[in-house]
């Protein structure tokens, strides 16, 4: 299984009018990296999840996500938005946006890595390190170090 994230899946200067545009931008990275076969299907699945309840969380993070049959392997695309993008959290816009893409069906073993990622997201130190990352390879290294399946 390849890595959860690559440097091509990182955008440290994400600017978008709204969360839909931000999500699309990140989804395009996933698509360009060949981990998603159909951009529109994937976006529709993410949209459906987002409509149930916005995925913005306190502390400036947004985690649009979906299990989709268009996704070929567990992947996260990461965007840092200095200006902030509203993801519906009660305490303000999101600066760290994680688009989590999970393949549909199949066993659960390959989703362990996404569970491990989700667990890291609640730690302030992880978020802080992402805020301070200098470039995409910093981010990828951080994920490699911190997101460990136990």
């Amino acid at each position, binding site marked *: 299984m390849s890595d959860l994230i690559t440097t091509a899946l990182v955008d440290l200067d994400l600017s978008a009018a709204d969360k839909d545009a931000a999500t699309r931008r990140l989804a395009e990275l996933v698509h360009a990296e060949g981990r998603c076969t159909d951009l529109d299907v994937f976006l529709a699945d993410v949209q459906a999840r987002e409509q149930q309840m916005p995925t913005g969380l306190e502390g400036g993070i947004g985690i649009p996500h979906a299990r989709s049959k268009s996704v070929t392997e567990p992947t996260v695309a990461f965007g840092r938005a200095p200006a902030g993008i509203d993801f519906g959290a009660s305490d303000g816009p999101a600066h760290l946006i994680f688009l989590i893409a999970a393949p*549909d069906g199949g066993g659960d073993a390959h989703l362990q890595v*996404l569970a491990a990622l989700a667990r890291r997201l609640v*730690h302030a130190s992880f978020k802080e390190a992402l805020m301070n990352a200098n470039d995409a390879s910093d981010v990828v290294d951080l994920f490699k170090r911190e997101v460990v399946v136990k």
Partner: protein
Amino acid sequence: MKIVAVTSCPTGIAHTYMAAEALEEAGRAGGHEIDVETQGAAGAATLADEVIGAADVVILAADVEVRNRERFAGKPTVTVSVKRAINDAVGVVAEAVRLAAAGPSDRPEVIRTEPAAKLPAGAGTGTQVRGWLMTGVSYLIPFVAAGGILIALSFMIGGYEIVGVKADIPGFLDSFSVFSGHDWAGLMFILGDGIFGTFLLPVLAGFIAYAIADRPGLAPGFVAGWAAGVIGAGFLGAIVGGLTGGLIALAIARIKVPSAVRGVMPVVVIPLFASLINGFLMLVVVGKPIATVTDGLNNWLSSLAGGSLILLGIILGLMMAFDMGGPVNKVAYAFAVTGLAEAATSASSTQLQVMATVMAAGMVPPLALALATVVRPGLFSRAERENGKAAWLLGASFITEGAIPFAAGDPLRVIPSIMAGSALTGGLVMAFGNELRAPHGGVWVFGLVTDWPLYVVAVAAGTALAAALVILLKAGTRSKDEAVLEAQEDAQLFATA
């Protein structure tokens, strides 16, 4: 303090685990022992019974229903949204500690069964009922698919006369040969027919009741489904019985009882009394009117047979699609098959036209819904889309039951649409004058239909009309709550698969 928690969210890949981590951190920081069961997509480490038994307090952080919730019966319980657990885990843990310190729960909470956390706030009664129906349907689909495909395969391999093996199953099994294609087809038919006859209605009703009242609803629901079969009430009867079974179980669960009895309520008391009451309702109260209606329809059809054949075709079409295997459908089908027996000894072709009409009209509902799931997949839940794939084969094989999952999940939109489609097909077959001597078989007996190309046109026209109507009704009148509901149902279904 010993804390156990369950986290669960619609998609099961993010919030479930974030909430688990946040609660674990907050619990440990507060000096508590905490174990969290993540009911997500990456597998759940199930809480051991000893751990639950030793726990002082339970935290349920969930946006979808917590599975096996009755394990926590009687424990002080804090129920919060999964988001709140992530955003304010420390506050949630503090609340749990306060609750535990206040002493054992004195609420009569055996199970908190309202799926309140499952639905968006303000969802109407209609949406709630649809949620219950969809849960029933999601458990029904595997049975429809397995049974229907087995029957279809048996026709493909053994021809429609394979149904004869049912007459003497022990004899058939005695002489079963693994090298005989016919015997395999017979076995498939017996299995498929057994699944349809034994399980469809009980599973549908049982799991509708389960959606309402959790496990205590299972017995009264299954009983109602079986009773619907006994009184010939079909899947609509099973839906009604499932709803009443669940609501009765829920009502009994709300009765305040002494704490000594509380423990046996979900396992013994509720299933016992709810089954008795619901069984009485189905067999005695509902049974009689159904029998009366069946007789009335029978007489009415016979009286129509002398009049306009096209009108008769339209009415047979409406009847075939109305309840798919229920009393109305059965009257129409029995009318055709009885006529077939008479036709064998007479020269009249009306009976053969009736048989052709009934088969064509019965093929339309599954085909139409299969078509609709392909044309507008977004209007259907994922479970329905999967069922749509099997529905092609079931419709082609004249297994009308293939449409039941769609109709049971959304009866008010689906049933009128397929009735219109089947009515068109029925009228056209009569107009074209097609005749059929086989009582079953779908496309596998099309060779026996006179003027079969026109027959195909009739089936296709009804299929197209019904699919178009389903799409129009769903697209035009589906509320956002319903879409959310379907997404959540899917998330749960496929996360646990």
